């Protein structure tokens, strides 16, 4: 493909690894450019498939967060050296979408490997000549490649490829005078401006004219909505930090998907505590130390009695904060389905919740889902424990 035609000068390259990632500006797309050479590095090994690489790198998968995709500037040539970089010009009336400048030079070893068969002296005489500048015009995606050659500071020949995506931002119908003005020469500080200067850039983000929200409603966050947990988060101020994997904002420690990373789960393992009775009086305040008889090791699970459907779908919630009340639980469990009854155990003397309560769902499946989702959920700065009220989940 194109790479072959450009590679003839390569043997004369004295190589060293200089990887200029970007030329000074630290816009997000520039940072990503560091990745490009490495990616190109991988493709170097597969150099024989140069044509394929070329297409590969030019693909939209190349990039980053920036929605404006842009191709990696790595051309894997026959000798495995990879180059990138450069300068390109915007076209009038069309806005240059991205301008990148990456320079990557290959290592000496690979040169020798690849070009071992060739005559060593060939091309040395013509060191001072540079191949002509090539412009591979805008293709259907608007991608334009400009390939230039230069001597860099160390006297090495460097091939610079700039990939630009040009996109029409607006249709400008200019008057005759305006068209004349378009061809005015630059003056003042703009005189020495090469077209690759970064004064003018297109924003990487799509900015919208945001309609005003009704006061009190939350701004729409671009997070994954639809997750019921996200909907339930109070006031959006919960910062969930997981101790196991250290990831913030995603899940609490007890709900860490990477539970096996470190033995952190001690807190919630039920220690076989010798506590009695039962069921209700499980002074919900003991977190994790008390094991209801039905869940202890060796407990027999008897068949369920004929209970009212209601109690079959009863869910016990423990480790509630002291000011949790029925409406709170109602609100918390409503998203999972119809709730027929909520109860929060309140200490009559102090008026505060004793830390536990019960929620009866109409449907068992809803109850199951509620248990799955809310067990370990952070609510009012405590981690909830949600389980079947009669500890037999079929």
């Amino acid at each position, binding site marked *: 493909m194109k790479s072959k035609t450009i590679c003839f000068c390569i043997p004369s390259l004295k190589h060293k690894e200089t990887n200029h990632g970007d030329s000074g500006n630290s816009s997000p797309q520039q940072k990503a450019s560091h990745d490009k050479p490495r990616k190109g590095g991988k493709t170097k090994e597969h150099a024989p498939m140069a044509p394929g690489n070329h297409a590969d790198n030019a693909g939209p998968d190349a990039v980053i967060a920036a929605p404006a995709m842009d191709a990696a500037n790595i051309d894997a040539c026959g000798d495995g050296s990879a180059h990138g970089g450069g300068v390109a010009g915007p076209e009038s009336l069309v806005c240059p979408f991205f301008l990148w400048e990456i320079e990557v030079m290959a290592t000496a070893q690979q040169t020798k490997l690849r070009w071992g068969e060739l005559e060593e002296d060939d091309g040395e005489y013509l060191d001072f000549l540079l191949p002509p500048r090539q412009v591979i015009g805008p293709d259907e995606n608007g991608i334009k490649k400009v390939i230039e050659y230069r001597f860099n500071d160390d006297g090495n020949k460097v091939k610079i490829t700039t990939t630009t995506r040009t996109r029409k931002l607006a249709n400008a119908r200019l008057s005759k005078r305006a068209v004349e*003005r378009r061809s005015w020469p630059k*003056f003042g500080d703009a005189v020495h401006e090469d077209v690759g200067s970064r004064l*003018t850039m297109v924003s990487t983000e799509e900015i919208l004219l*945001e309609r005003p929200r009704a006061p009190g409603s939350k701004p729409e966050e671009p997070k994954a909505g639809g997750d019921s947990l996200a909907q339930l988060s109070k006031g959006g101020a919960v910062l969930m930090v997981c101790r196991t994997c250290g990831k913030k904002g995603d899940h609490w420690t007890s709900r860490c998907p990477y539970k096996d990373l470190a033995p952190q789960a001690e807190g919630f393992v039920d220690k076989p505590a010798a506590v009695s009775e039962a069921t209700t009086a499980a002074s919900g305040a003991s977190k994790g130390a008390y094991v209801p008889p039905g869940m202890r090791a060796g407990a027999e699970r008897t068949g369920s009695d004929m209970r009212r459907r209601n109690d079959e779908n009863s869910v016990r919630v423990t480790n509630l904060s002291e000011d949790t009340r029925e409406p709170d639980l109602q609100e918390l469990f409503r998203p999972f389905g119809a709730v027929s009854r909520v109860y929060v155990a309140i200490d009559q003397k102090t008026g505060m919740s004793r830390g536990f309560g019960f929620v009866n769902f109409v449907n068992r499946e809803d109850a199951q889902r509620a248990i799955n989702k809310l067990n370990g959920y952070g609510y009012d700065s405590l981690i909830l424990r949600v389980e079947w009220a009669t500890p037999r989940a079929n």
Partner: protein
Amino acid sequence: MRPILMKGHERPLTFLKYNRDGDLLFSCAKDHTPTVWFADNGERLGTYRGHNGAVWCCDVSRDSMRLITGSADQSVKLWNVQTGEQLYSFNFGSPARAVDLAVGDKLAVITTDPFMDSPSAIHVKQISRDPSDQTGESVLTIKGPQGRINRAVWGPLNKTIISAGEDAVVRIWDSETGKLLKESDKESGHKKTITSLSKSAEGSHFLTGSLDKSAKLWDTRTLTLIKTYVTERPVNAVAMSPLLDHVVLGGGQDASHVTTTDHRAGKFEAKFFDRILQEEIGGVKGHFGPINALAFNPDGKSFSSGGEDGYVRLHHFDSDYFNIKI
């Protein structure tokens, strides 16, 4: 829409102006070089070198040949737009704050700040076609308003001059005699410094923005208050769309918003209001600092904003913009 970011200035922007054809955008900033850009793709055309102080304001003639800029270095300079060459310099005893060219480009109104003993003043100068004929004589000088005059513009048919400034009063002066014709009402007018003033496309009404977090729409001939737009931030810049009934306000720091965590581009926004209903239509975020300058392209299909961050953001509207309904 994807705004085009132009970072040609190192210091905060002070003023933006489109030429009549809408293909050039002139930007003034506190760094001493006004710059001209192509308005379609944001490419820089050139800079005008010569000022020694912050450039506060500029105006361009209708044929886009002459640029006049007012600067804090106590001079107002005339430039050739195409070459960047300085044609003439008017010198004053105090920093020049606002400039505006009259219809026909034969006269210019220039305001100067109060400085040491001299109060603020409004000067009218003649601009001649041929730069060699240019003289520095004032046709008219008006003194009187207290405090700085932030903006002064010509009224319809150059018969009047409208000025607004730190004393929060909008005044209309006769341009031939210099007599004060009208003043805005104290109760219904602004309560704090008026920072900006923008005329409508045909000149029948104008919009003033003030640090009292509101902008007001006035009739040019009678100076009656027509509409008021209220925001949460002090208003630094105002602009009116020539195409739709929209008013844009650009503002400054509001302490209560400083701590909100918005990780997106930049939280200072230009707010769009419906001109007639006075309701907010929306906002365009993006600036990292208070917005100091706003300008609409005369074709109404794009606008640009300049901020304290030194960036000029040029927005070409999407088609949904033209279909907004409240």
